[in-house]
């Protein structure tokens, strides 16, 4: 199962604006895999949105999940 991740703002500077990961079943696993590949992400502040909803606890993923990593907003 491949999970597609989109990244924004300063996070895209680190890892590019999209990343695909195999063999992740939930967001905790996804974060571990990402931080291992991109250590600078571990030092960045961000929230995770799954299907356009910000999550606050570990969330299971399937191949239709849209995962987004969102650094602090700075619109306006």
């Amino acid at each position, binding site marked *: 199962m491949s999970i597609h991740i989109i990244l924004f703002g*300063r996070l895209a500077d680190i890892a590019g604006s999209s990343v695909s990961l195999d063999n992740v079943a939930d967001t905790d696993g996804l974060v571990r895999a990402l931080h291992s590949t991109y250590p600078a992400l571990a030092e960045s502040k961000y929230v995770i*949105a799954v299907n356009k909803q910000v999550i606050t606890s570990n969330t299971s993923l399937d191949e239709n999940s849209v995962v987004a990593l*969102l650094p602090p*907003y700075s*619109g*306006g």
Partner: protein
Amino acid sequence: MKERKPKNFFVQGPIAASFIAESIQDHSSRTGIGAHSIFLGQVRADRIDDKEVESIEYTAYEEMALDKMHAIREDMFAKYDLACMHVYHSLGNVRTGEISLFVFTSAAHRRAAIDACQEIVERVKSELPVWGKELFGDQSFQWKANQ
């Protein structure tokens, strides 16, 4: 099943003063309106060390932002006695002195228009997945941080 289709409120580049004037003019036939409240965000030439911001490049997670704006709109009409509400936000490059955010509320009485406008501005800044990259003249940049 009909899918809800939130209105796109993103504008490519700066928001022109003439567009704001047209928006105001469009409300002259709404004769139940007594008060308009408008907020405009303008790109500031902040100095950081010896460099000055020349423009901000805005990007957004557009699909999520449209959903969020839809929720803000529903909350505002539920909470305030509004006649209308419009929000426009720039994407792409906006130079210093240009407008990147336009919030416009209208109501029979001033209290609803003013309070709603203020609340929308706060929610736009804190809830919309939008990012500003402050570009300096020498090709360097920094990511904007909202207060």
